[in-house]
Each structure stands twice: as C-alpha cells, then as structure tokens.
C-alpha cells in the first residue's frame, strides 16, 4: 500500500467519526503588565497555583485571583509579553521533573539545565507546593548528621530530619559551614541539594568548582536562581529544592537541603506582593511572610519506617544586619527552626573560625541524635566553656586574679582555640572525638595558646597512621579504655614534636 493510500484511509477514518475530539481551553487576555506580574482578564475557570501559557510560549503562574482580574507571575523572560496577548490555562499545577540523573547537575527552579549539558529526562513530576507530612508520618530525630565541623558536632549536634538555621552577618562564613557539611557527606548516603537564592553567579560558580574538586558533586544537586533571575524564579527556588529533596526522601534515602539564603527569598516575595498591591506589614513584608517560610521548612522531616523511612534535613541560611537577630525575617526563622548556629563578626575577625557564638547557638532536637561517644566527651566541654565565658566576662573588670582563676581562664581560652577549624576540611567522627578528648586531657595543661594549632596538625598526622584506631571509633562510636590509652600516647608523642 502506498503512502497516499494510507493517508486517504486515515482521512476517511477521521471524517467518518461522528464524535468531535475537542479540548476546552480557558483563555484570557493580558490587560496590564507590571514587571513580572501580568494582570489578565478572562480565565474565569482558572485555579490558584495553576500554570498558564502566554501566546509566545512563555509560562506563568496564577498567584492572585481577584474579582475581575487574574494576577499571573511570569516565570521566564517577561520582556516581549504584550498587552492584549492571549493567555491559555494548562490545567496543571506548578511542578518540577525529578530523576536520579539530577545528581551532579546545576538546574534552575523549573528544572532546566544551567550547566550546558543536555536536558534531564524526568522520571516523575513533583509539585512545588505540597502540604508537609503530618504527625503520623514522622518519627523523632534520632540519627546524627555529621557536619565534619568539630564545634558543631560536639556542641550543636544536628540530626537527620532537623531544621537548623545558620544565621549571621555577611562574610561570617555561613555558606562555608553549609558547604563543609555537604563535603562531609561523602560516603554517608546523604543526597545534598544546594539551593542558591539571589546569590552572585560568581559565588555559585566557585561553590560548584569546590564541590567538583572534592568529588562532592556526584551526590549533590545545585539549584540556582541568581540575583539576575526574576523574582518569581527566586521565589520558587527553595520549593523546587524541597521537592527534589522529597523525591529522594520518598525513596527512603536521607537528603540534606541548604537554602542559601532565605532573606533574599523573602525579598523576592516582598517584591511580588508589593506589585500585587497586597497590604504591607512590618518592613513592608506582606502578612503571609511567616507562612512563606514555615510551610517550606515544615516539609523537612524524618519519616517513620512504616511509611518508607527517609529524611529531609534543612539548613536554612539567613543574613542579619549588624548582628541584629530581632529583625523580622531572622526572628521568624528562629522560631520556625529547631535551633540556630549563630555566627559573629567579632569572633570571625579574632580568627576564631567557624565564628560560632556558642552561647547563642542551640540545637533543640539534635542532642537525641548525637553519637554516644560525642555526648560523653562534649558534656564536659559544654560546661567548661559556659563557665569560661561567664568568668571571662567578669574578669575583664578585675586586674588581679588568683592563681586558680587564671588557670581556669587559660584552660577556657585553650579549649576555644581547640575548636578552631580550617574551612573545607571536615573531620571524620574519630578525628573529632580524638581532638576533643585531647583538649579535655590534663596532659595539655601547659600548652601555650599559640601552639594549639601546631599540636593539632602533629596530632592528626600521628592519628592518620593509626588506621585501626580511627576505624574502630568510627564504627563502634565508643571510646574504650584501651583506645583512650592509645590516644594518650599519641598526645605525648605530638607534644614532643612541638619545640
């Protein structure tokens, strides 16, 4: 049969069919454009959160439904959209294509690649907006998420499924803590998602570079809505990151999402809200700014094994101005999250990095998830440091101190120095335990402050050779009396190496 005959047969079939196969489309017309917000007349059957398509193929999202008009936020390039353009409803809610192939990729909040590699074929579509799992589906946080930063793992432990806020002024190392945590997840079976909102593209590029160099990109997804992206994309980025995290969590895996940072996310939403003429509240943020973040962070959870297990840990970052934690967005986030890591400029400039203010930082649920060995040795450290802080503040006014107090202050300063750690060098559990155990040890009573970092490097070099010891601590998560003796010997050896 020739091709023409086939066509004729098809045509006949089409014509003889009585039923018309039609598609009812809801349409509207652009009336007004305000930056990325289009006011559309018509679309009388569209629902909130639906994706619409403009005549030139650009997509939009219904964000405002008033009596006469529909407010649509344009997701792509809004230059080129005209008043009078046709708008079609698609009947779909906004979602992102997810797949295991996302690992190692850089995408925008709509799932389009930003790394010059071919598009990702999705296995499923996950809705960006989703109601967080209810109480029945959750179980308490009980597994640690090792950040590889000894100060955090010892004093502000984070568990899988927790939401721990990283808060501080600009340039205090907030992103560094998050990135170090990602670097430390190598071989820990944690899928990492780094979501950059309103960041400089150069910063994101250097982060990608760093992750690549440390072979951390193979288990990481990067979502970027840079400061040059539209406010709409910046608004959706954290939800997209969360949706991808949920995809991995639903497979029973553990996922970690870093939102960097949510103050810019709030700005993007404020911009959209102000254009939509929604009533402005404190600092011109709209009334639902709290819900904006609470519904996002509530989606972090540790799922019960009955419902497939898996967890989603969230590390939101928020920037403060001059250490002011009482401004609107930081207070909101502090109350939503399960604790915060508070970073200070003064500490940072004094060379104490990570510049964590231990007094103001807490982890409300992570304590249950801390490894037994860490819990044992960190308890003493916490107490000592708290006493030291109090004493140090008090002793500033007194010129003459007795011997005992002076010794105590010296010890506190040494402990603080021991918690300093270089960036991008996360430690495994055994290293952390060994170092903190050493810091508590009486053998180092006379170690001068400026020799602490020397001692640390010698000590770690010696520890590196003791593969069995390291492995035993990492596996058993205990410190036996035998191993304590071994550590003692190592400390003595390391002390001899310092001259």
């Amino acid at each position, binding site marked *: 049969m020739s091709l023409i005959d086939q066509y004729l047969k098809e045509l006949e079939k089409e014509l003889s069919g*009585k*039923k*018309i196969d*039609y*598609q*009812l*489309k*809801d*349409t*509207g017309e652009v009336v007004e454009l305000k930056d990325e917000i289009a006011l559309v007349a*018509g*679309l*009388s*059957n569209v629902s909130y959160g639906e994706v619409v398509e403009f005549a030139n*193929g650009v997509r939009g999202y219904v964000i405002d439904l008033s009596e006469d008009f529909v407010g649509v936020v344009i997701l792509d390039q809004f230059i080129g959209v005209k008043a009078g353009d046709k708008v079609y409803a698609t009947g779909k809610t906004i979602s992102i294509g997810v797949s295991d192939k996302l690992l190692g990729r850089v995408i925008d909040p709509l799932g389009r690649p930003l790394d010059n590699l071919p598009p990702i074929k999705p296995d499923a579509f996950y809705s960006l907006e989703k109601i967080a799992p209810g109480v029945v589906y959750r179980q308490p946080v009980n597994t640690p998420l090792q950040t590889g930063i000894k100060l955090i793992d010892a004093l502000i432990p984070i568990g899988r499924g927790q939401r721990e806020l990283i808060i501080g002024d600009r340039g205090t190392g907030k992103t560094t803590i998050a990135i170090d945590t990602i670097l430390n997840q190598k071989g820990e079976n944690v899928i990492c998602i780094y979501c950059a909102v309103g960041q400089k593209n150069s910063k994101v590029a250097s982060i990608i570079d760093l992750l690549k160099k440390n072979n951390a990109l193979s288990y990481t997804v990067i979502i970027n809505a840079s400061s040059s992206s539209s406010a709409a994309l910046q608004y959706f980025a954290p939800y997209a990151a969360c949706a991808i995290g949920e995809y991995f969590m639903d497979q029973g895996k553990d996922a970690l999402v870093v939102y960097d940072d949510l103050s810019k996310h709030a700005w993007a939403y404020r911009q959209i809200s102000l254009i939509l003429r929604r009533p402005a509240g404190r600092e011109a943020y709209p009334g639902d700014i709290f819900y904006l973040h609470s519904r996002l962070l509530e989606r972090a959870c540790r799922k019960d094994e009955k419902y497939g297990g898996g967890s989603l840990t969230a590390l939101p970052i928020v920037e403060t101005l001059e250490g002011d934690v009482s401004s609107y967005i930081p207070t909101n986030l502090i109350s939503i999250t399960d604790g915060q890591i508070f970073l200070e400029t003064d500490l940072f400039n004094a060379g104490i990095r990570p510049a964590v203010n231990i007094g103001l930082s807490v982890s409300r649920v992570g304590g249950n998830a801390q490894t037994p060995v860490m819990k044992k040795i960190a308890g003493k450290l916490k107490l000592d440091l708290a006493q030291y802080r109090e004493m140090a503040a008090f002793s500033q006014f007194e010129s003459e101190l007795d011997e005992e107090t002076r010794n105590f202050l010296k010890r506190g300063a040494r402990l603080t120095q021991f918690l300093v750690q270089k960036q991008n060098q996360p430690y495994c559990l055994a290293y952390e335990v060994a170092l903190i155990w050493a810091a508590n040890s009486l053998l180092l009573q006379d170690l001068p402050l400026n020799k602490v970092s020397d001692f640390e490097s010698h000590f770690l070099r010696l520890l590196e050779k003791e593969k069995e010891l390291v492995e035993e601590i990492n596996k058993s998560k205990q410190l036996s009396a035998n191993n304590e003796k071994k550590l003692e010997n190592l400390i003595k050896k390391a002390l001899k190496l310092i001259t």
Partner: protein
Amino acid sequence: MKIDFRLKEELRKYLEKKINEKKQIVKVISVYPLTEAEINQLRKSLPMLSERKMVNIVDKSIIGGLIIKFDSQEIDLSILGQLKNFKNLLIK
C-alpha cells in the same frame, strides 16, 4: 465625569444584565458562513452550547475548521491552531 448616585444603582444593574447576556453568546469562527443545518449539528455534538445564542463570524485566516468561543472558554478546532500546536511540538 461624576455619575450621579441616583443613576449609579440603575446603571450597575443594566451593565450586569448586559454582561450576563454577552456571556451567554457563543461566537463561532469559520472560513465560510455556516448554514442552519451545520449550526444545528454543532449544537447536537456540543451539549453545553444547546441553549445559547450563536453568532457566526467569518475569518479566512484560520485556514479551515472552527473556533468556538463562549465566556472565557475556547475550543480550537481550526487548522491554524493545529499548525501552531505542531510548531510548538517541533520547537520542544
């Protein structure tokens, strides 16, 4: 221009009525004027149109087929619409 408040209520009622009437009207765009029989057939195959008033508009640019519009809804059965879909498919 300020509208007298005594007129306002009446005007609103009138406009509302007018808008509702307009909403009921179905526009059918075709390349040639449709006959009564063809319109009746259309009513039969699309039950939601049965009660409404129909207006036939001739527009050659749709090449062939029909576009049916009522309220904000639209059914595109034209060749032009299919070509557009095809174009989108190719681009994607």
